[in-house]
């Protein structure tokens, strides 16, 4: 290993030297096969292909040879180890056991046809295990006895991983003539219309070997396909499946990241972080590091729908936002919809972040364990009944108490504790070839004790059951139902008279039914129903102990339902032009039992402007809000490498987060729309240009958007947001507008891979309702606190070998706006500050660079365990990025400004993970 690495370095550093020795001979002493492959390719132009799942990469080879004698010499070296060497053109194939038979045996095709005919009652060509794909075999689809081979047929099936049996998501399945494509969904399922007759079906997936299947299509049929993971040592041209997808679908503003990418991105304390990767995508901002929320294209933090296996997550972070609450070992991929949000999603006006967990290995029990500076984690997956029922379970916990122990005595936290854990579990059960059941559960809890008197905790709980069924070749459905829960509790027993505990909880029950119907090659329908029942306990304040005088106060429970019907049609007008027309109609109402006040219109809401008290009986509608939402997009493909898209969508949101802090705070409260609080709404229009270049190895995209938001809730000066039963009197409605342009260059594969994104954007807010007392900034537009116009992000990974890679992150953005003092005055025996208009100044620009080295010492598939070591530095340059600026009014007559940096120094870390 060491030697070949060294050798490789020489090759990289001194290409001229190698070139000088070219042509003549290879003289190698005890080198690995991958190094030999490089030499062979450089010196002789012969490419060596070998199987990764053999012990060949542990052999040390010595060879001295010329070009002509090389294949023979190689065979002489390898035959004693049980390998065969076959020369085909300029390619050398090394296989375990027998060599490649270059010609097909006679009667091969007849025999395979015969076999298919035997199983024609299934109309299915199932693949034997162990055959990834057979490019030389013709698969017959449909009934071969059908008379005519004209018209179209529909082919559907699953694409799976050959070695683990897990469904493969996002694999492009397509034919080139005529240009028709499909992408596998979250279950690995695809459905594609094909002209009858002989077809070449192509499959491309990220990190997978490309496949080409020969089909003879007679009629509708099913075909399950197994793909092999790419054996990376093979040097051949790779194409990106994602690039193909980007160009072909009408979807705009969709960002998709696979978990292996997430694991290579350096993160604070080395925790592979599902949420932090979202922040590296164009159009996504945050007010500062270690803050829980994120802002998508000018939306507020509560306007993102975060779905983890269908369940809504209200607080996706641990330790107040330092880490995301999802275990990276369980997660398969994340999808962020920024722009054309599919009609099946609703309820938030800015974005949808969908996090999918994996299904689990269906062949054998595997797992992993890892330790980092702050957390330990473990996961296990495998079949319960082979090829029928799989499970996956993961857990994570922290030992972060040591951080508190490091604090100075005077901080008062030395005796504090902080703890969190999360558990994710999933079971999938295949009832038959058409029906599958999924059961998912998630639980996370964060608890803190600041000292013996004060404690705080919050928890998420989600459980869902999902049934997926193929009704027929053209039609399938997914029905899911579940329960989501979020609550927090604070208590303080330091002062006996004031000892209290405060609880807040949101519970919701949901039912979703989603149908996909491929009518013909022109139309594909997606329709269904979503329904949510909310129960929100806005707060209960209870005394603790006999001496406490705290009045038990329980704010009345808020209940509401939200239902929506949707229909969208993906209409391929021609190869070049396709449309996606979606309509969603949602109906929301708060439910009784409820008593509320009516206020005099045109007056600030207060006790004085009450004109009526209304009581609504149990189960009765308080005030319905309903309306259509449009999701429209179009794509025009100029050619295979360049397309243009345009879209419009509108959204509605009925639940609001109330916060007077810039970051998401764990004690932020949520509020359902009711008679006095109007739902938020918004619309966005966007366009995009997408192109591939350099042989489809580099993807370029340019997207622009303009959006408006209405009825976003801001707070009044001096507002009380917790335990306030008349919250409508303390909030103000604001409108917002945002626009921006996002440019991205992406190289998904290859030794050097990653992306670079530049965004220019503006987000402005305005308080419009003139009747609510003083207007923020006199009713003028002001920048939102996450308005950072210039934004550059680079995520890069360079693989020196399969065992060794380095990763680099760069993040630059304009400083966020803040409100700063303009003047000081002495009042009430102390210095007080007179502040500027809201968000009138900006903190200094943000810049951070992170670096990590990933080492995977063992790659051999036959080893029982595989370990990974990651060494890294977060904030390599140690720049003291300002999170905020503030002024100390107690330091003397001169008021000194200070800036607070969250990570003001380079933070090194190390993590160790083991897979088995």
């Amino acid at each position, binding site marked *: 290993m060491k030697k070949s690495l060294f050798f490789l370095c020489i090759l990289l550093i001194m290409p001229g030297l190698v070139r000088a020795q070219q042509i003549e001979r290879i003289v190698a002493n005890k080198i690995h096969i991958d190094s030999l492959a490089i030499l062979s390719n450089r010196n002789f132009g012969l490419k060596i292909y070998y199987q990764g799942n053999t012990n060949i990469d542990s052999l040390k080879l010595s060879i001295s040879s010329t070009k002509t004698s090389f294949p023979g010499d190689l065979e002489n070296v390898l035959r004693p180890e049980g390998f065969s060497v076959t020369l085909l053109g300029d390619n050398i194939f090394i296989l375990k056991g027998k060599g490649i038979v270059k010609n097909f045996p006679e009667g091969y095709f007849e025999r395979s046809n015969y076999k298919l005919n035997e199983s024609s009652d299934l109309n299915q060509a199932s693949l034997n295990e162990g055959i990834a794909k057979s490019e030389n075999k013709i698969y017959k689809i449909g009934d071969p006895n059908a008379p005519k081979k004209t018209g179209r047929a529909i082919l559907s099936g699953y694409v799976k991983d050959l070695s683990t049996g897990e469904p493969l998501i996002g694999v492009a399945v397509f034919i080139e003539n005529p240009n028709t494509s499909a992408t596998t969904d979250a279950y690995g399922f695809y459905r594609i219309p094909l002209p009858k007759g002989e077809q070449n079906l192509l499959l491309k997936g990220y990190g997978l070997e490309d496949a080409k299947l020969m089909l003879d299509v007679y009629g509708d049929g099913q075909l399950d396909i197994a793909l092999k993971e790419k054996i990376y040592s093979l040097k051949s041209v790779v194409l990106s499946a994602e690039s193909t997808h980007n160009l072909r679908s009408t979807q705009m503003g969709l960002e998709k990241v696979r978990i292996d990418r997430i694991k290579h991105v350096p993160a604070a304390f080395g925790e592979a972080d599902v949420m932090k990767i979202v922040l590296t995508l164009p159009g996504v901002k945050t007010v500062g590091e*270690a803050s829980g929320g994120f802002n998508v294209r000018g939306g507020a933090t509560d306007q993102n729908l975060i779905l983890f296996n269908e369940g809504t997550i209200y607080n996706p972070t641990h330790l*107040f*936002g330092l880490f995301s609450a999802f275990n990276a070992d369980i997660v398969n991929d994340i999808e962020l919809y920024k722009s054309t949000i599919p009609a099946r999603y609703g309820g938030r006006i800015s974005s949808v972040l969908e996090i999918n967990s994996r299904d689990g290995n269906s062949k054998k029990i595997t797992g992993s364990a890892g330790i980092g500076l702050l957390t330990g984690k473990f996961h296990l997956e495998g079949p319960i009944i082979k090829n029928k029922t799989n499970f996956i379970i993961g857990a994570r916990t922290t030992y972060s108490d040591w951080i508190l122990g490091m604090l100075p005595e005077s901080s008062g936290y030395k005796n*504090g504790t902080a703890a969190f854990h999360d558990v994710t579990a999933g079971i999938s059960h295949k009832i038959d070839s058409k029906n599958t059941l999924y059961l998912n559960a998630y639980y996370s809890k964060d608890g*803190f004790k*600041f000292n013996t008197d*004060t404690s705080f905790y919050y928890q998420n709980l989600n459980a869902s059951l999902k049934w997926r069924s193929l009704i027929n070749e053209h039609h399938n459905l997914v029905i899911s139902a579940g329960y989501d829960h979020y609550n927090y509790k*604070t208590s*303080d027993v*330091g*002062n*006996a*008279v004031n000892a209290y505990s405060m609880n807040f909880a949101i519970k919701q029950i949901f039912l979703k039914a989603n149908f996909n119907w491929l009518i013909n090659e022109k139309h594909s329908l997606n329709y269904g129903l979503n329904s949510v029942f909310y129960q929100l306990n806005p707060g209960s304040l209870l005394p603790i102990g006999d001496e406490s*005088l*705290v*009045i038990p*106060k329980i704010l009345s429970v808020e209940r509401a339902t939200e239902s929506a019907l949707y229909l969208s049609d993906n209409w391929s007008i021609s190869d070049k032009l396709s449309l996606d027309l979606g309509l969603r109609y949602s109906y929301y109402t708060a439910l009784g039992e409820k008593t509320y006040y009516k206020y005099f219109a045109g007056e600030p809401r207060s006790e004085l402007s009450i004109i009526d008290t209304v009581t609504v009986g149990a189960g009765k509608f308080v005030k319905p809000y309903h309306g259509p939402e449009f999701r429209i997009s179009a794509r025009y493909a100029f050619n295979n490498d360049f397309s243009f898209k345009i879209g419009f969508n509108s959204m509605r949101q009925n639940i609001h987060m109330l916060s*007077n*802090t810039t*970051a998401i*705070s764990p*004690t932020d409260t949520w509020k359902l729309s009711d008679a006095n609080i109007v739902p938020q709404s918004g619309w966005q229009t966007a366009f995009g240009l997408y192109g591939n270049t350099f042989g489809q190895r580099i993807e370029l995209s340019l997207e622009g958007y303009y959006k408006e938001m209405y009825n976003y809730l801001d707070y009044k*000066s*001096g*507002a009380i947001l917790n335990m306030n039963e008349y919250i409508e009197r303390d909030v103000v409605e604001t409108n917002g507008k945002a626009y921006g342009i996002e440019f991205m260059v992406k190289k998904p594969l290859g030794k050097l891979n990653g992306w670079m994104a530049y965004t220019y954007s503006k987000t402005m807010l305005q308080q419009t309702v003139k009747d609510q007392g003083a207007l*923020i900034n006199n009713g003028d537009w002001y920048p939102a606190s996450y308005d950072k116009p210039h934004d550059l992000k680079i995520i890069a990974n360079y693989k020196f070998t399969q065992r060794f890679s380095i990763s680099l992150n760069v993040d630059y953005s304009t400083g966020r706006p803040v*409100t*700063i*003092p303009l*003047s*000081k*005055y*002495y*009042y*009430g*025996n*102390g210095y*007080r*500050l*007179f*502040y500027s208009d809201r968000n*009138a*100044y900006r903190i200094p620009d943000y810049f951070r660079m992170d670096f990590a080295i990933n080492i995977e010492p063992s790659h051999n598939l036959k080893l029982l365990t595989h370990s990974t070591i990651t060494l890294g530095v977060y904030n390599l340059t140690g720049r*003291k990025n300002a999170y*905020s*600026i*503030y*002024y100390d*009014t*107690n330091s003397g007559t*001169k*008021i*000194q*400004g*200070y*800036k*607070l*940096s969250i*990570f*003001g120094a380079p933070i090194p870390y190390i993590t160790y993970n083991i897979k088995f």
Partner: protein
Amino acid sequence: MKVVKLYIYTLISALMINGCITPFEPEGYAQLENLLVIEGDISVNEQTEIIVSRSLKLNDISKRNYIKGAVVWVESELGVKFPANQVISGTDVKYVANTAGLDISKKYKLCVRTPDGKSYESDLVPVIISPDIDSIEFVTDTLNKRVTFYVNTHDDNNKTHYYKWSYTEDWEFTSHIYSSFEYNPLTMKITEIPSFQKNRFYCWNKDVSKTILATSTTHLSSDRVYRMPLVSMGSLDLRISVLYCIDVKQRALSREGYQYWETLRKNSDQVGGIFSPQPSEMKGNIKCITDPEETVLGFISAGYVSKKRFFASKEEIGVYYNPHICETVIPESFAPPVAWSTMFDTGYDVVSNSPSTNESVWAPVACVDCRIFGTKNKPSFWPNDHI
């Protein structure tokens, strides 16, 4: 929740920081000055003291930019005026009106006419009667060696709900070493202090509350304030080294007044953290009549003030401990002997002098002369006979 939020903020800051707070001067924006600030509350049982000043730039080193020569008066809702006189002491300027004995059933406003001819007035505010202070007490934390002074009050009628406190504190302390000699730098001689009246052993000092102390009891079943913390001191604090006195004034506030002070407190105390609220604008209840657009800072309340004074001695508190590292030096013992003037110039003062042996004993001036930390001005109400 307030407490918990504050904890979270402090904890997160403490977690990350260790040197992550650095001084910072924002550039490229214009600061404001000369906003009019009117401070003071109308009292119906004592004099009303009003301070009129203008705001300053942040880096200005002066405390207040006082306005002299303004015309200030308190006016009742019936139009009766109670004029205030300008009182200048040193650099301080205040306007004092004799408002003791005002009719508590009327509403009052404060009016100011500045020398530049502009007129300002507050809203008419009702007189709010503060209940008596029940007690002032202290609790010692023997583990962390701290003492905290608290105020307790309640309103049997359940009407007050919003409270604000301020205090003045006086304390007596001593130098560590008693010296009956002093060095005269002019004559360069050591002389015996002629009278005990002029001793440098007993001293006094005073201070006022610096933080905004306000609370509400609206969340409690009875209108009772239990152990509202006023001031906290550690074991080295000179204030509790001999005798400490805290003189607390309690005012009751209207809901608007409470909101004003609470917002002011939040804007002063809780800015810049991860979870700290954004500074929010607060409008006082004072307007410029001549130019309604002009920003005026301040909130005027009217009320009956209740007061209580509380003494606590070192022995009662039992927390004070100071090792007093006071090295003594005999300058004549050096070869060659150090001159007295050199001793004096390097921060030493004389403890004793014995002309017969030609030896003097010196110690750091902070150990010998209590006036370094206070004055000889003993408060008139001081309960002991120390001089």
